[in-house]
């Protein structure tokens, strides 16, 4: 526990000593903010038109801010996460290997589990800061409209769980190599594959289709975005994270195995 805390603080500190955290957080916020501005502006224009023009009103039916703004917003946040989180996790082990600091770290009396969890929690901390910067957007929505708070809460819960899954995979990739670029590319590519497999579920047969649907990393987020807490989706993200943390631990431990 103690070691975990020391590693966690060191990780967070080093993210802020290097420009990585600032760059990743800034770009994340800019992308999210830009998208939010677009969608919110579109929504207000349409609502304004609908008030004056019954044709427009009938075209869109009941205008719901949750449906029209919040749900797409969560969708975009998850895509931006998929792109940005590998850049947050790429350095965690790769950099220590490159600079050799891992040689000292692995000779300290720290369990591999504490090390992996400390690094994981460090990334989660930065990710939480990142995510919290998107909250003002939703406050703006709440100020002008009347969103469903349930959807917002489950949506953020889902994003956080999904971020945990992305980060654990990124950590594992970083533990495989001493090259940060390779770590980032590997994580990004695997996340993309996990994202895309869902779309091939339609033409590979029923059983396989269901399997691909289950494996697909974004499909599990849909229930959260609808304001529903589905245990199978929660379990998916938790298992995903545990699985890759376990692999990272073994990738570290394998250094200590006899050749």
């Amino acid at each position, binding site marked *: 526990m103690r070691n975990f805390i*020391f*590693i966690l603080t060191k990780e967070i500190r080093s993210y802020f*000593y290097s420009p990585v955290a600032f760059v990743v957080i800034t770009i994340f916020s800019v992308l999210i903010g830009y998208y939010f501005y677009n969608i919110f502006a579109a929504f207000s224009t349409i609502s304004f038109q609908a008030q004056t023009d019954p044709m427009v009103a009938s075209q869109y039916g009941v205008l719901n801010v949750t449906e029209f703004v919040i749900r797409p917003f969560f969708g975009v946040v998850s895509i931006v996460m998929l792109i940005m989180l590998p850049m947050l996790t790429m350095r965690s082990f790769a950099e220590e290997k490159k*600079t*050799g600091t891992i040689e*000292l770290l692995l*000779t300290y*009396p720290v369990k591999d589990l504490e090390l992996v969890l400390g690094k994981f929690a460090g990334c989660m901390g930065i990710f939480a800061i990142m995510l919290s910067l998107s909250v003002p957007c939703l406050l703006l929505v709440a100020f002008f409209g009347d969103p469903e708070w349930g959807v917002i809460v489950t949506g953020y819960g889902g994003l956080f769980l999904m971020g945990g899954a992305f980060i654990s995979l990124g950590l594992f990739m970083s533990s495989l190599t001493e090259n940060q670029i390779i770590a980032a590319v590997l994580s990004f590519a695997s996340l993309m594959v996990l994202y895309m497999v869902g779309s091939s579920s339609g033409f590979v047969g029923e059983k396989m289709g269901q399997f691909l649907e289950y494996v697909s990393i974004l499909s599990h987020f849909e229930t959260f975005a609808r304001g529903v807490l589905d245990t199978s989706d929660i379990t998916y993200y938790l298992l995903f994270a545990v699985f890759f943390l376990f692999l990272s631990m073994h990738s570290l431990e394998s250094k*200590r195995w006899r*050749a």
Partner: protein
Amino acid sequence: MIEVKNLTKTYGGNARGITDISFNVNKGEILGFLGPNGAGKTTTMRILTCFMPATSGTVNVAGFDVFEDSLQVRSRIGYLPETVPLYTDMQVPVYLRFVAGLKGVPWKEIKNRVAEVMEQVALTHMAHKFIGELSKGYRQRVGLAQALINDPEVLILDEPTIGLDPKQIIEIRSLIKGLAGARTIILSSHILPEVSMLCQRVVIIDEGKVKAVDTPDNLTSQLTKSNRVVARIAGKQADVQDGLRKIRGVKRVDCLSPAESGAGTSKYTIEFEMDSQSSNLVARLAGERQWDLYELTPMKMSLEDIFIRIVTEEEIKQ
């Protein structure tokens, strides 16, 4: 305190690391690890510090096996790696507090302990600096400070004085000497005088194998003596060989290059049982028999070859 038995490490492919290394270090002793580049010093130390496993063989530190009880061993050692890898983006005290935390210094003592160690390695005036801004010598001190932070029983220092200026070398050496006594220290070096100054015993290692383990004094005297002599003498080969064989302490005499003509010179190797005065006795005999003595050289042993390689490096350095 430290028992190394039949330690072998082969790197991937055919790269040879170390082969069948065995030695012991007693409690409170400073052991020198002497060898030329690529001898396997770093490899051995990395196994001792649980950074990587041996291919075969065992290491026992303070009663714990490095492979089975890695955590126990790791909490008892302080390690200064050869390259002194540090987090360059941290300030010195912040870094040392981090290490103190991981090495199990109690929460309340961390602050005091960091100040104490910084004092000990004369780093206090660098407290506000980031490690990346420090010179090599000061980084070395930070490296030493992190090794000492939990006051470990065993210190493993890989070339602690490399890359330092002469003044700092002297300071670091006296620091290490001051640490001895309570702690068991292994330090590697290719500098012979450094090792003989600091260490009670020396392990000489070359090409992955232990060539000798002894006190610096014994090694030095053993090296300056030699029990084989090469002599080039003019005279009838059979007579000379016969005469040489009769010298007290001679075990065998070989003729290396027989003379082409009867009056030419032949080269002999003479092996003595006792090493004292060997050249002397040959010269005296040549005088008595009125042989012309053209050459008389004590023959070098392989250990001495290694030493010369090490010592030569030292001379280039200084």
